[in-house]
């Protein structure tokens, strides 16, 4: 029973971190240029 409580709490915390990270990436504007992001991987910059 204790293990279950611990596991539930742990998974919720991790999932919340994931959600916060996604919302941050949305706010910073990382989804505004998906085509550009795909192409920039191929740039040969030093």
């Amino acid at each position, binding site marked *: 029973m204790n293990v*279950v409580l611990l596991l539930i709490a742990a*998974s*919720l915390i991790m999932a919340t971190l994931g959600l916060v990270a996604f919302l941050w990436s949305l706010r910073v504007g990382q989804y505004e240029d998906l085509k550009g992001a795909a192409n*920039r991987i191929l*740039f040969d910059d030093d």
Partner: protein
Amino acid sequence: MSETATLTVADTLPRCRHCGEPCASGEEFCCIGCTAAYRTISGLGLGDYYQRRLLDPKLRPPKPEPADRFDVQSAVVTRPDGMHEMTMIVDGVQCGACVWLIEQVLARLPGIERARVNMTTCRLHTIWRGPAETADAIIDTVEALGYRLVPFQFDRQQQASDAIERSLIKALAVAGFAAGNVMLLSIGIWFGLDDGMGPATRTLMHWVSALLAMPAIAYTGMPFFRPALAALRHGRTNMDVPISIGVIVITTMSMIETLRGGTHTYFDSAITLLFFLLIGRVLDHRARGLARASAERLLALRDADVAVLQPDGSVKRRPGAATTPGEHIVTSMGERIGVDGVITQGQASLDTRLVTGESVPQRAGPGTQVYAGTINLAAPITIRVTATGSGTLVAEMARLIEAAEGRRGRFVVLADRVARRYAPAVHFCALLTFLWWLLVMHATVEQSLLIACAVLIITCPCALALAVPAAQVIATGALFDRGILLKSGTALERLASIDTVVFDKTGTLSEPELALTGIPDPASLSMGGALAASSRHPLARALVISAGPVQPPANVTEHPGQGLSLMTPLGETRLGSAAFTGAATSDDAFAELWLSEPNRAPVRFTFAEAYRHDAANTVTALQAMGLDVHLLSGDRIEPVRLAAEAIGITQWHAGCLPATKMALIEEMRARGHHVLMVGDGLNDGPSLAAADVSMSPSTAAEISQNVADLIFQGTALAPVLVAIHTARRTQSVMRQNLSLALGYNVLTLPLAACGFVTPWLAAAAMSLSSLLVMGNSLRLQRRMDK
């Protein structure tokens, strides 16, 4: 004949190393601009650009061209921290290499903090330290490489649309987070119950699920609850109503069960339902937003600046929208008039095809009202600006458009029509189930309620609500790839049910640019073409296209308002107006250019409109599909009759005023026909608004483009055919999806009514039906490749 000869000659010519256009034999570059661009790029050590890039032959080559110098400073914004920033639209970015090149070259300019190209929206965003005048250097640099820059206007409608999209994605993220975690707990319950999970653990799981799901449902359900409420308040119903009712019933019932310590809760179904539906909403909204933004960008690229006359006689360029009534602007020969106004000076020959559809240039003098979109052909004129949109023609068009849109009525989409009958039917079944269990099977009130709710849960329209967006998103994307921009959400459905197509003539069936008529002698043609290559006058451009690859001589002098001249060993060669070349003025009203070579009689080039190369084929194909094709034009009888015969349209009307066209279309609709209108001119605006669905080429007048549901690019008429085909196929896939969704409901409803449905069955059924619908819609993508 001469055309095929020109083609083979062009094939053997070397290609410019910078822009890929054919250049004279023995040369490496086609013009000075390309030579300079190549030297700049190689000099900066960025020569890899040429290896990496992929030029699309259908798009404009990256050839540096002299562009209108617009008012740069009005586009520069000063930030609070002292740096300046500027956003511009970039035309000509074809692949990642172009983005890389522009960013690398700009990064080397002094003071640049940030230079970034957004490939999806084709915008260049720059931030720099130092004086605001650096903007000029930025623009010059990018244009010297062969790209075109145009100031970007922040559109309020686009901003609102972006805000909605962001809030939908946020809701999607929260729904996904909640759905994943609740499902985690639910699977524990489903498998745990058989393995001896006690009621205490189960109740704990239910409580955690409830705490996760309740706020999530309240937040992510908003995009559905709000429109449902709005529709109900107006006495209507749409697909959002059964969704909202279903979600609220499931959540309430599950909450009650949790409080009672009951066995089954359905939080996972509710939140997963919202998650799937939000995916559909986000994709649909994004696809449409992209199409609309592209349409705006095409318009912005087309907008010309105007030359405003200053009190001291000098001229300052400014965007047309930034002029005030009473100011005077000077429009030079070959320039498109950017504002509405009255001519105050100069005798003009105007190409009014975009405004009235007249295929022949109109003479106009001081006192004549002129409209934005008209091209000034022969001589420079001064225009006094009148209030934008107040000119009688424009105001009349706006009034007619508004009236037409009001009369057209609301189109009820298929999904909403299904919802109208679906929701009451489902609720009735639930009621029946409740009464049956209570009265016939003698169950308790709670048990009967539970089973009735299970009926509502299993019939919750997940697949039904996905059926339409799934097909629509894929269709919008497929059309976008073919250069057709779908701006309205209901246009595809309206397009699928049409039985009549009405075409405008000028600019729609015919190409927007004038073309050379007749076959002039090849020597004059190549001489004229060589001179004309240095000018941006529309007639000169048409001459260059007909002449084929030419090597423009280096010392051509442009005489503004009159023509071009070149000193040769034999004397002076001139290309331009009749007065400039010493030719006699002619009686007929054709648009013309004269070429005078020393010791030769002046040669006349005439220009007229040319029909789109596939116009006849497209019309034949439309008629073969069983559609009724009409031609309504504002032009005189003779040109319209010729066009109708050449293209194969038997039903045509000439001399139509805008109001006449609109009345004819409304009359067709009154007789029960469904009409697609294809038009481009200012005078087509009301008929575009009156038709069931409308299309415009991307060269159309701004008002028409704003009214039209679809915009197509390019010089072919085939997009009309492609759009209709796509719409019909999409409609059939949508109907299949709806049948699949309804079929699944019919199968599972009896199961629910008999009390066999448990949470895992509900969740599995919902996911399966959604997958089926998505899979069926993906079939649409494969068949689009025709």
